[in-house]
């Protein structure tokens, strides 16, 4: 099964190629084909996961299986290979991606029912799945970067899927440019990593880093081989070196790599593309911009966790970024009116959770790492479910604005129910829902590892999350309908759309239970790291506080939005509220910086240089050529006679100069 893991990758690719080449005129066939391929991939991924679970090996390294095939060699020792690295987190991601992709494909049948370009949609979606799977199983930084970019491209194509909408085109460009900007740093980091540490394979890097950290702390009992030795040596050499701007090269490399994940996971202040990316079709938002692609940054950080942990300051940057984003996005989410933007900001906030959770862990206390992966797992399902339900609501009332909704619980009963489950999950309603457990773990890990500030931010954000999700839920489903009654009459639940939502509701609830019961699933799939770790029981006060925050948030939301009718007629004049609802004017800042500063002071002089110096050289050389050609062109007038004459004269000249005459 390990060796045939490439099949999982191949199936969505077949779906893409077949769909784009042959089926783009038959949307129904394309959909069926895509679902077939993705379903097969899902089955294979599940088989793979079950095989992993049932294997006797436990622990992080024992479970990492790699196969690879050499692609090209940069130096004698540095070979770029493509292949698969299968360890608990990649397998978990495989399962999550394939399950969600299959369900979203199914959902899309209903969602794209009346769309003329649906035949293009399914292949592109499969292409994304292919790229994402390739990213997840990448055993080297280079392969990860290749698929990283493919993921970016497919995201670009899907955000701009309705390319006739100017806003969609602008959003896709924005997403593309911002993530490319971050990827430039990522690539630099890879190059730095490759040159300084002589390795781009995750295995070698992580083993070397683990060995190094254990040498510093405990007994160095690792036997290393291959690239890991190089990494180890390089790390030892870096120890204590001054480096550049006060950071040593390892920190530089890891921070640069992290910036790639920063952009992809839309951490503050590179988050601006994600809310705009909601211009794409809702299934795209659900799979790409909430459940899978945006966690690529988290995944990258987790992938390189040992080396990040060894590097000075890197994890602090991670933690800081994550905490700021979580708080920042949660505050904005409280004020938004666009149904998908609320969810987008909530995604940002949850990504911030995952990020700072990674940041609070280190090689001795890996609870944060475990918690982060756990949250990735649970979040994927309930966030996907939230987006799917949002898509169904949009589909029904033909609007994105929650100001034009309300009272939909009567019309969309199924949706109401599953959305309630998902809202409870994300808000952290205790005991029954998966989100509670994973969030709990994160806050617990932060506190117990001495990052009290992050833990408190986590608690605060938990309350905010409960509040804005409650607001979201009550404004949509409770109260009176505020929109165009005409749409409400036709509102219904498409069975293709409802079915995957119902299926997703199952993991929304049960995905957190295994943690509670100590089931082996989580002991195995969520890496328990190298050294045994337990949450600090002294922090047992956290759970009641977190529960109180969640319930309190929901209660406030109920009091403010659920209990009585809400009016959106008069815009708030409160300056703080306006500032928040305009997303702290971050977009405007960007536009000011780019348009006013960069364009005017840098780009305009460059353009002058380009126009007059660079183009001038080209134009004058072209003019010279044209002048010469004006003379010669008459010799090539299509007359055989002239050609023959020239040929013979040339022959004679050749003979003359060649000395034959």
């Amino acid at each position, binding site marked *: 099964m390990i060796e045939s893991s490439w099949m999982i990758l191949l199936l969505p690719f077949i779906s893409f190629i077949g769909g784009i080449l042959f089926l783009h005129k038959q949307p129904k066939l394309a959909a069926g084909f895509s679902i077939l391929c993705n379903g097969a991939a899902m089955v294979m991924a599940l088989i793979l996961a079950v095989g992993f679970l049932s294997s006797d090996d436990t622990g992080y390294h024992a479970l990492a299986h790699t196969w690879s095939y050499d692609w090209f060699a940069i130096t004698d020792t540095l070979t770029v290979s493509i292949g698969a690295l299968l360890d608990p987190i990649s397998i978990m991601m495989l399962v999550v991606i394939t399950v969600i992709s299959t369900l979203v494909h199914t959902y899309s049948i209903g969602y794209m029912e009346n769309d003329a370009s649906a035949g293009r949609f399914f292949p592109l979606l499969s292409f994304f799945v292919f790229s994402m799977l390739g990213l997840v199983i990448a055993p080297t930084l280079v392969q990860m970067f290749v698929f990283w970019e493919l993921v970016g491209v497919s995201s670009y194509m899907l955000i701009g899927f309705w390319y006739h909408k100017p806003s969609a085109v602008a959003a896709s460009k924005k997403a593309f440019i911002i993530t490319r900007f971050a990827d430039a740093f990522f690539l630099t980091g890879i190059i730095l990593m490759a040159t300084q540490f002589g390795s781009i394979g995750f295995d070698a890097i992580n083993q070397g880093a683990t060995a190094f950290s254990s040498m510093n702390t405990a007994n160095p009992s690792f036997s290393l081989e291959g690239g890991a030795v190089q990494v180890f040596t390089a790390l030892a050499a870096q120890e204590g070196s001054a480096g550049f701007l006060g950071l040593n090269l390892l920190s530089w490399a890891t921070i640069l790599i992290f910036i790639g994940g920063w952009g992809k996971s839309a951490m503050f202040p590179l988050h601006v593309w994600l809310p705009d990316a909601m211009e794409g079709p809702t299934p795209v938002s659900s799979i790409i911009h909430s459940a899978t692609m945006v966690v690529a940054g988290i995944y990258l950080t987790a992938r390189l966790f040992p080396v990040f942990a060894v590097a000075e300051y890197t994890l602090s940057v991670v933690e800081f970024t994550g905490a700021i984003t979580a708080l920042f996005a949660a505050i904005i989410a409280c004020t938004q009116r666009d149904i998908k933007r609320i969810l987008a900001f909530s995604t940002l906030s949850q990504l911030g959770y995952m990020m700072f959770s990674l940041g609070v862990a280190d090689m001795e206390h890996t609870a944060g790492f475990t918690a982060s992966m756990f949250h990735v797992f649970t979040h994927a399902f309930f966030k996907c479910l939230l987006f799917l339900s949002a898509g169904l609501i949009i589909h029904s009332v033909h609007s994105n604005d929650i100001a034009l909704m309300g009272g939909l619980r009567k019309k969309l009963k199924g949706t109401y129910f599953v959305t309630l489950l998902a809202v409870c999950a994300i808000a952290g309603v205790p005991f029954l829902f998966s989100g509670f457990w994973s969030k709990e773990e994160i806050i617990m890990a932060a506190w117990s590892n001495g990052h009290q500030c992050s833990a408190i931010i986590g608690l605060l954000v938990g309350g905010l999350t409960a509040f804005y999700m409650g607001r979201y839920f009550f404004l949509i489903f409770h109260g009176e309908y505020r929109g165009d009654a005409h749409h409400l009459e036709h509102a219904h639940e498409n069975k293709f759309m409802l079915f995957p939502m119902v299926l997703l509701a199952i993991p929304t609830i049960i995905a957190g239970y295994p943690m509670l019961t100590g089931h082996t699933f989580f002991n195995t799939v969520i890496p328990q790291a190298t050294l045994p770790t337990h949450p600090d029981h002294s922090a047992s006060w956290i759970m009641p506080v977190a529960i109180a925050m969640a319930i309190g948030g929901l209660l406030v939301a109920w009091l403010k939005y659920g209990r009585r009718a809400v009016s959106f007629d008069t815009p708030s004049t409160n300056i703080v509220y306006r500032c928040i609802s305009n997303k702290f004017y971050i977009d405007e800042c960007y536009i000011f910086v780019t348009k006013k500063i960069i364009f005017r002071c840098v780009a305009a002089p460059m353009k002058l240089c380009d126009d007059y110096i660079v183009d001038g050289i080209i134009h004058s050389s072209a003019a010279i050529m044209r002048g010469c050609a004006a003379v010669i062109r008459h010799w090539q*007038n299509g007359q*055989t006679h002239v050609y023959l*004459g020239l040929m*013979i004269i040339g022959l004679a000249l050749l003979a003359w100069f060649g000395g034959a005459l």
Partner: protein
Amino acid sequence: MNLTACLSLSAILFSFGIFGLMTRRKIIAMLLAIELMLNAALINCVAFAYYAPAGADTDVGSILPIFIVAITSAEMAVALAVIVAMYRKRKVIDIERLEDLHD
């Protein structure tokens, strides 16, 4: 009869071919001139084989002409088909009046 005589003969024939190619206006006549030139080449081929030194592979003197002849006939078949098709369309086989073909 010696090698130089044969070669001179073929050289003269070849120059006739070039003269024809230069002065003729009809495509068929130009093809004809090309035939002359190819024929001169054949004469060279055979003459060299006949006057080859001991140990040379003289079979090539017979085999190469076969290839030349075969390629020529293929070329002629296509060329003449093109001419006939062109004549049907435009009623012209004068090369100077077909100059617009290169546009």
